[in-house]
């Protein structure tokens, strides 16, 4: 995987810049000036496309040149059966992202208090997956922190937070 990093990202960048260029054609020009609102997107897309091609070439060259010795270790690792739990533990970053995305989607509906306390609890669980789980401490931290933040922001600092179904 590591040796193909630049090659993969280079190709993605090229494809992305072509897509941007094509969709820039759909931008309407309202006033006639020498360059319209479609100029910068196109310029950025062309620049990025060129850079992407350079990155792809570099990536391809170094992928060809890179020693193949890593692949043996990779193959061994791939053969070993990985349990679901292990896979989960190795990808705590992705699990956090999923949790965070869900949080951002429900906070408007459930409100800050409910969604935040649940989120913090789950996130602490996730990050102490290998350790003893002190559920009472986890719940206490999530609820107390959420309430402190809520009152600090809404009552002291006058920053509104989503109330959701509680409001």
């Amino acid at each position, binding site marked *: 995987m590591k040796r193909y*990093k*630049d090659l*993969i*990202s280079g190709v993605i*960048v090229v494809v992305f*810049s072509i897509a941007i260029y094509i969709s*820039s054609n759909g*931008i*309407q*020009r*309202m006033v006639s*000036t*020498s*360059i319209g*609102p479609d*100029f*910068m*997107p196109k310029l*950025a897309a062309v*620049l*990025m496309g060129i*850079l992407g091609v*350079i*990155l792809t070439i*570099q990536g391809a*060259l170094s992928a060809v*040149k890179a020693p193949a010795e890593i692949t043996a270790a990779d193959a061994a690792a791939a053969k070993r059966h990985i349990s679901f739990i292990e896979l989960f533990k190795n*990808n*705590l*970053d992705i*699990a*956090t*992202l999923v949790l*965070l995305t869900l*949080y*951002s*989607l429900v*906070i408007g509906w459930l409100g800050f208090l409910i969604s*935040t306390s649940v*989120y*913090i609890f789950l*996130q*602490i669980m*996730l*990050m*102490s*997956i*290998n*350790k003893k789980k002190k559920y009472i401490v986890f719940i206490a*931290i999530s609820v107390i*922190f*959420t309430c402190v*933040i809520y009152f600090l*922001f809404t009552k002291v*600092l*006058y*920053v*509104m*937070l*989503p109330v959701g179904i509680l409001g």
Partner: protein
Amino acid sequence: MEIAISGLLAVLNIETLLLLFGGTVIGIIFGSMPGLSATMAVTLFLPVTFGMEPVNAISLLLGLYVGGISGGLITAILINIPGTPSSIATTFDGYPMAQRGEAGKALGAGIVFSFLGGMFSFMALLLIAPQIAQLALKFSAVEYFAVTAFSLTLVASLAGDSPVKGLISACIGLMLAMIGAAPIDGTRRFTFGIYDFDAGLDLVAVMIGFFAIPEILKAAKGSIADENIEKIKVDKIKGFGISLKEFVGQLPNALRSALIGLGIGILPGIGGGTSNVLAYLAAKNTSKEPEKFGTGILDGVVAPETANNASIGGALIPLLTLGIPGDPVTAMLLGGLMVHGITPGPMLIRSNGALLYSVFFALIIANVFMLFSEFFGIKGFVKILDIKKAYLFPPIIVLCAVGAFGSTNRVFNIFAMVLCGILGYLMDRFEFPLTPIILSFILGSLVEGNLRRGLMFTDGSFWGFFKSPIAAVFLVVAIFFLFHSAYKEIKKTKTKLS
């Protein structure tokens, strides 16, 4: 003089001083915790400042900035992990010194020279900023375009190891900035028919997404191996930790490092994270005994710690005079100022000259607070390192979400923050630098607006931009940087192949 006094008076009240003190102490905590940085400190406390008076808001953020850059030396010296990127080079000699039982000396020297580096750069800020602002007042759209384009190319080619990747990052930032209404005519672009995109992406949400979320995800991934860290014990530092003779002997080194730090700070896109390493290398290369570097030599602690604090004043110069942030922290500061309706730039110093002095005095006071709290509170700061990451990071994520939401009171901002976080994390995994994205996101509409306005001045001719001497110089240097990066890339590819 009158302006200076009113600037000072704005800072000299109990509330502001308390905020400065609190900011500095919290900043030091953030700086000393591996995984948390000055940028993160400013990011998290941004929503706290939304409801404050502008001067108080700036004071809190500046305190966090000064503390955050200075706190890194504690962990760098005591556990060999730089608390922030600004103290990477401090580990090279600071940790060996601590292992030898000279932790107090290393810490003392680090703290004293952090303080001096900071003072040096704040004086420079006060001297240089008004001059640049005076010059920048004469700028038309043509010159503005040239300066912003210059900063963008500089950031892109300096931020990471690979200029190509840096430039791609900058392009992505430009594209993110294009979502929503176009400058000048307000045409809607790249909204994909989604109503929430019409107003564009919120600056604070984007910055938190790119700066904080990837760091948090890395911490989550690393939490599986989160073990207790070995710390070298330190008691109270005796005196300043170093003798007067040692202090005087370090002054030439400190001056050189401070100049490096200041210069690197002024350059857009790079700050303390780069300057500390460069200052260390410079100290090593000019030393009579370079072989002693890495074994625990005082010069090796003084150089990076002077330079990283000297970058603070440097980074604030382009921010306050041109509205161009010099590093990630000043990018966040810019976001904080804009929430309060303050747009940094040459007009700011002319119309609100007292603010520059408030910033100056706030920095100096924060620096003094830093000096004392690090000297007397070192044991406490070390103790805080024991807090478990699992308890620390989830609340931090929530504060990020609050910050993103609070800047314009829209739930959509939280979602935008997560999206930027995903993109940022992916790019980080593929080794793209993230600073250029933020900078070009901030500067994107400035570049485009000034280009289009400038073309109206020059009747649509691109060559007209080169008729202004200032613009011509900046554009030529920008083009030179582009070619230089291309050359560097070709050379790198060649050596890879041979």
